[in-house]
């Protein structure tokens, strides 16, 4: 590795030159590159100050943004002039930020003027049609600034601006500024809180609480008496657990959310309140209370809780039913199995409650636990099957042979009898029949199924009187002529309809079970599972094959690859599906003895396949050709290897190749990671008569060669 001097690695002189000579595209890049590469360099600060007078607004905007945090008090006057004279909003915003950080007291009159108006007599703005929006941003910025500078004399003006019915809503910035002003601001915040209503009052109190909660200590009763739950909630941190008001908060607050918050805060110290909360009229509160019930409980209470939980599992909404399933598992595991199974299977119950039931079943450890989960694998609901698979996989990893066998069968797709593979729904089988379509007589002889199929209602007599012209026509036609195509059109295939299913589905259990089983349990270390996974890599369905290869990848232990896996992986390298090829390549890459096979993937049309091949077996000059790859992931892989080699020639080659390929993002990465590349960039930039395109490339690469520092200096490469 060459040892580069700091002069060779110093891009500042060249960037300053480009800032003087380049066009506006290059100048904006130079400003950002200076900020990225040499932010705290005095030359940068001087250059940025000068750039505030650039004719290009983007250059000025970037320069002012770059000055934030590095400007010195002596620069304040220049920045103030920009705030007044530059019409561009972004320049103004950054200028306010700069001056605030500098604690520039001379800017206060200007800030105060901008607080109340556009101050057009002293401040320039862009096109008047957009002035309103521009000023709103600046007004909020100067309010923040006045707060940070503790300009208490501006408080009346800030309140006046907030009260301007024609102005913008300024509650948040004004209250934040008042809060930053200490006692004097807090007094005004309290005043707002005591005299106003609704959102404004709530916001004032929140601002107050953030600054000094002690200021609210004397206001607890006042807060607790408030109509707004959010305001009452502000009092919670100020009420101790032994306070007499706690019970009232937990049990009697009119807002369920508040009762839940109180329960969570005080419940651990007041189990009797938790028990009482089980009788709350609101299910969310009941669910929260149930979640806090931990054994051992008083026997009578436990009996009561279990009885309630059983009832709620059958009747309550999602939150309480789910909490009940969870509580039953904790409090009465011996009697939980049947009710949990019933809930898990009941398609009329909320799905999240059913999933909670399956999760509960997964925590039971009795002899039939595995069988119950296996039984759920044939459940029509995809999410129920998935949770069951997850718990079965856990059991199999602990050595449960039955669970492993079931998983292997699920992956094989032979768990269900053929006639059970598809769950037929009786129409109109919507699970949530909360609103019957009509309270009148049956309305037609066709129905639409849950998947959007339009099907004939077999219950309608065929000799019924036609209910429409079309119906009349249809009655005269032979039923056999009707083609079965509603479910086969490209837009309405079963597959497509499935994708429209928000919650449950798909109904084709076997294929879905195979796919999910491969994902959830494909890495279970059981021979039967491995056999099933290997078999699945030969399936016709692309999605199943992909899932199988992914499972295979997860199963890998130490190299070399077992023969069967190696065979399937090599087969996968020539799969027509790119996703499979990339997974197969990752499998091959784990075995150093097989890497040669990956060289054939250098020319793969899929970027991720190429990236794997490059990462694992590209060497020497071969790496350089990937500097021009159209996909960043491939270039990144190649560059990573080049830099890791420590080969100066390769790094030079990479620099040249990236410059030729005009790949700014990877070039930036190279400059960040390679001193050689940085030195070459600095040298090139210093070259007289450098073509503008090359200068642009190098400058942009320098600009993105640092991680964003403040969220406002983004990677601007495109």
């Amino acid at each position, binding site marked *: 590795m060459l040892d580069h001097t700091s002069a060779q690695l110093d891009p500042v002189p060249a960037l300053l030159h480009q800032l003087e000579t380049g*066009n506006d*595209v*290059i100048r*904006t890049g130079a400003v950002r590159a200076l900020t990225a590469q040499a932010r705290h360099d005095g030359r940068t600060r001087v250059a940025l100050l000068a750039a505030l007078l650039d004719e290009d607004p*983007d250059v000025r*905007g970037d320069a002012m*943004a770059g000055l934030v945090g590095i400007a010195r008090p002596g620069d304040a006057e220049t920045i103030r002039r920009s705030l007044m004279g530059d019409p561009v*909003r972004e320049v103004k915003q950054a200028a306010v930020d700069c001056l605030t950080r500098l604690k520039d007291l001379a800017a206060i009159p200007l800030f105060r003027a901008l607080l109340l108006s556009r101050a057009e007599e002293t401040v320039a703005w*862009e*096109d*008047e*049609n957009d002035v309103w*929006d*521009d000023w709103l941003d600046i007004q909020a910025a100067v309010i923040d600034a006045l707060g940070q500078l503790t300009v208490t004399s501006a408080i009346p003006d800030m309140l006046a601006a907030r009260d301007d*019915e024609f102005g913008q*809503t300024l509650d*948040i910035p004004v209250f934040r500024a008042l809060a930053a002003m200490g006692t004097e601001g807090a007094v005004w915040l309290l005043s707002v809180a005591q005299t106003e209503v609704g*959102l404004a009052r709530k916001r004032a109190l929140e601002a107050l609480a953030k600054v000094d909660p002690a200021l609210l200590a004397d206001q607890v009763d006042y807060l607790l008496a408030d109509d707004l739950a959010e305001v009452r909630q502000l009092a919670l941190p100020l009420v101790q657990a032994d306070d007499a008001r706690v019970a009232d908060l937990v049990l009697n607050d009119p807002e369920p959310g508040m009762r839940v918050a109180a329960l969570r805060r005080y419940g651990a110290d007041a189990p009797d309140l938790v028990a009482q909360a089980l009788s709350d009229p609101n299910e969310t509160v009941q669910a929260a209370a149930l979640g806090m019930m931990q054994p051992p409980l008083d026997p009578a209470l436990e009996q009561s809780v279990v009885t309630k939980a059983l009832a709620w599992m059958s009747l309550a909404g999602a939150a309480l039913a789910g909490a009940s399933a969870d509580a039953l598992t904790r409090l009465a595991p011996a009697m939980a199995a049947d009710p949990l199974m019933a809930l898990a299977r009941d398609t009329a119950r909320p799905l*999240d409650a059913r999933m909670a039931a399956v999760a509960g079943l997964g925590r039971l450890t009795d002899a039939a636990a595995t069988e119950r989960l296996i039984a759920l694998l044939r459940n029509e609901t*995809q999410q129920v099957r*998935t*949770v069951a698979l997850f718990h079965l996989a856990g059991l199999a990893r602990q050595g449960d042979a039955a669970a492993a066998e079931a998983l292997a069968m699920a992956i094989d797709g032979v768990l269900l009898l053929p006639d059970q593979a598809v769950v037929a729904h009786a129409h109109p089988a*919507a699970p949530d*029949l909360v*609103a*019957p*379509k009509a*309270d*009148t007589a049956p309305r*037609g002889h066709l129905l639409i199924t*849950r998947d*959007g199929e*339009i*099907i*004939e209602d077999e219950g309608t007599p065929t000799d019924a009187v036609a*209910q429409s012209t*079309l119906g009349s026509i249809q009655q005269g036609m032979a039923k056999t002529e009707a083609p079965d195509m*509603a*479910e086969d*059109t*490209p*837009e*309405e295939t079963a597959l497509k309809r499935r*994708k*429209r299913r*928000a*919650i449950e589905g798909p109904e084709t259990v076997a294929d879905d079970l195979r796919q999910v089983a491969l*994902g959830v349990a494909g890495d279970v270390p059981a021979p039967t599972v491995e056999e099933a996974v290997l078999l699945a890599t030969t399936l016709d369905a692309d999605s199943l094959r992909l899932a199988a290869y992914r499972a295979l990848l997860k199963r890998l232990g130490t190299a070399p690859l077992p023969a069967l896996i190696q065979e399937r992986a090599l087969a996968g390298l020539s799969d027509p599906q790119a996703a499979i090829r990339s997974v197969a390549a990752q499998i091959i890459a784990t075995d150093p003895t097989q890497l040669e096979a990956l060289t054939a993937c250098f020319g793969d049309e899929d970027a*991720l396949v190429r990236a794997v091949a490059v990462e694992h077996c590209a060497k020497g000059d071969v790496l350089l050709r990937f500097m021009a790859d*159209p*996909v*960043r992931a491939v270039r990144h892989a190649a560059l990573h290897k080049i830099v890791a080699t420590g080969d100066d020639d390769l790094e030079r080659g990479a620099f040249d190749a990236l410059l030729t390929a*005009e790949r700014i*993002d990877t070039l930036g990465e190279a400059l960040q990671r390679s001193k050689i590349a940085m030195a070459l960039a600095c040298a090139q930039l210093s070259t007289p008569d450098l073509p503008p395109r090359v200068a*642009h490339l190098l400058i942009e690469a320098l600009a993105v060669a640092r991680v964003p520092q403040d969220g*406002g200096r*983004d*990677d601007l*490469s*495109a």
Partner: protein
Amino acid sequence: MSTPYYVPEQSIPLPPPDAEVISTACDYCIVACGYKVYRWPVAGGRNGGPKADENAFGEDFPVAPLGAWVAPNQHNIVLHNGEPHHVVIIPDKDTEFVNYSGNSSIRGGALAQKVYNPQTPTRDRLKSPMVRMFGVLMPVTWDFALDIAAEVGNHVLEKHGTNAYCVKTFSYGYMENTYAVTKYALRHVRTANFTFHDTPSDVTSTPGFRDAGFDNFGPSYDDWAEADTLMMCGTDPYETKTILFTDYIMPAIQSGQKTIFLLPRRTSGVAFAEKNGGLLLDIQPGTDLPVVLAIARIIVENGWQDDDWIRNWVNNKWESSSGFGQGTRNTPWQWRTTWGKFQTDGFDDWKEWLLAQDYTVPEKAAEIAQIDVQKIYTAAEWMAKPKADGTRPKTSIMIEKGFYWSNNTGNTQAISALGIVVGAGGRPGQVIGRAGGHQRGGLRGGGYPRNKSPEKLPGRRRRAMDTDRYLMSGHTRLAHVIGTTWVQAMCGSQSLQAKFDELTTRNPHQVMSFEKQDIIDTLKRRADSGGMVVWDQDIYLVDPIGARYADIVFPASGWGEDTFTRANGERRLRLYPKFYDAPGEAKPDWWIVAQLSKKMGFEGFDWKDSNDVLEEGARHSRGSRKDFNMVLVAAQREGKTLHQKMGEFGTNGIQGPVLMREDGTLEGTKRLHDTTRSLPDTGPGGGNVFNKKLTHFNSQTGKCNLQKAPWDLFSSYWEWLKPREDEIWISSGRINERWQSGYDDRRRPYIVQRWPENWIEIHPSVAKARGIESGDYVQVYSDRIPVQTDTIVGVEGSDFDFASLLNNGHIELTKASITAVAIVTPAVKENLGYMDFLHTAQPANALAGRIVDWISGNYNYKMGVGKVRKMGESPYKKQFRSMSFARRDIA
């Protein structure tokens, strides 16, 4: 047995006399007809009867044709406060404006079918937040989903910067929602990686209008009817804005209005116009500009231009230079008026330029566009030739996407110039504007952080980021997608989809846990590894953005499920009240964004209801075409909420910008740029904003800029793209029966029966050469779909012209293939295939080049090419029960 046939319901209940009546407006097209919702409880069976005193309409049934009849599609049953209620949703027969005749389109007439009822095909509405675990979307609580989204979101912001956080959102889904979404994305996330549903960049859709000084939606609906000559470019209002056509333009045509369509396809509206003496300029795609300028050329060569208008309302040399026409220095668009390519020194300078261009010679333009040159001459005569008595025809010009999405900058510059020359602008019946697509529900809660965009082109301010290209380059680490399909709605959609696959489903970091922290950690690792995480927020699960890519799905509520506000195509503001419960746990978009924002630590999202949001946002409407701040002022003075005040306007609404008179009453604005309007000499009182565009045009001087429209800024692309060998143009657009992506239509049996698949209209000669007949399945494909690569290096303006991009290796050719059912018809131009624009299963946009108009940053969605070959017969070919191959261009 299954059958695809739709049979309507036979009977529905009438509302009883005491049914609640709620005024609202249609959810669909820009016209926004007024509707009434009649609501009464199911419990008790208190339905109305056929006698006048037994029903809410006060009518004896059966009623006369076009009476207060209720169609079966106008009834449904919903939950209201948890209890089943009947709703009947019908056009408001009493409204004075918009659908003043009580008429409805096929879309609005079936509004009741869009509301959620689990016994109808709406049953798959999203009802619960979901998180993808083990590859499966699992229902979770709001807190669970939002906690994950907030923590991962903050991680992306901190580690990868604000531009790694993308927000792609609808622009029209009511002002309460758009205000909240933009406040979150632009004011708090502060990302430049932000745009709306129909564009890769947050830029103006009509740059030429912007430069000329025209607002997109200045005209009133009455203006279209009052024109003597109406030119409609790139749209048939009958197909897409039905009531605007049937209740305004059709009667005008029948009363003698001369109508000129500029379209590559003969539609129903065109057929009606032609039958009544109208004219179709049946150009081939992308050739609007030469034809428009040729019309202008004939007008000026004959001296038919509106000299008085031009003298008074067009910037002359001094005015153009002073303030550069478009305002003070450095405005984002100012460069176009000083660049040298567009700006003129006034009419004479523009005329000189016009006459010097060979493509503006009518015969040359006709050759490029492949039309009968006589039509150009006729159009010019109709638009500008003074009548025998010396008076001028009142001419108006309407444009829409077929026009401005073909050659975005060029076409809009050219039509603006033609509009100015014929005096269209600012007078009754003499206007120029957009017809509109969706309603106008945008309200900005933050300014676009232009300084963070990487799109710096020489000589101009940074342009808004091309979010598609940014994603393609792998910079986007989190995408929050709100109410849009994104993939199918953008150009070159199949290669875009492949990149989504690469960044999401093919990334090694997939969630394999039920534990919240595991999920968060996995998603962070994915973002850190160069992949992308996706939140999708919608009313239905959309494939693929939701069904395949989303890690978190937020269920949204929509029309009728919360109280919202929106404007129509003549800026008419109306309240859309909540009248039923949203399904399950679905929440309005503003609520979802507010909760997420709060969890991310952003302040100011503690609204308790949608009225709070609008009241905060009202101030931000000032100066806009929808300015309704004075409605808020009036409401507060009267002790009402803004929603209450808006509701008082009923279906009549009030047209923005809204001013307050001295006596405190409110006054709407019939048209913008209204040169006939007098405002108080004393200037704006109180909080009124007298925006210049109330009575003048949107420029520094208040006059119009008459600009050049160079064909050569676009022609290199057009020449390269135009069909070769056996290719034809592939373009797309809307049809009357389907709205947008068909998200509601796919759940309406009649529409599914009528349009079960995407289709392609092709000319008989094209069909014959390929052995295709109506009803055949065809493959529409191409292996030369140009897309911009993820890096564009340019320091000179010429670097960004298509030819230079191609030469510099910044254009990649991709492939795409979709299927369609052939409709063979002479209604289309001979070398054109025309498809439905957003059939999500077979999106026509897959064949349109992902090349932005390099001036504006917009896509030209209508410009695709491809080959067509027969695949076989579809089932519709011979059974005559689904689809129809009957000609639509018959009046």
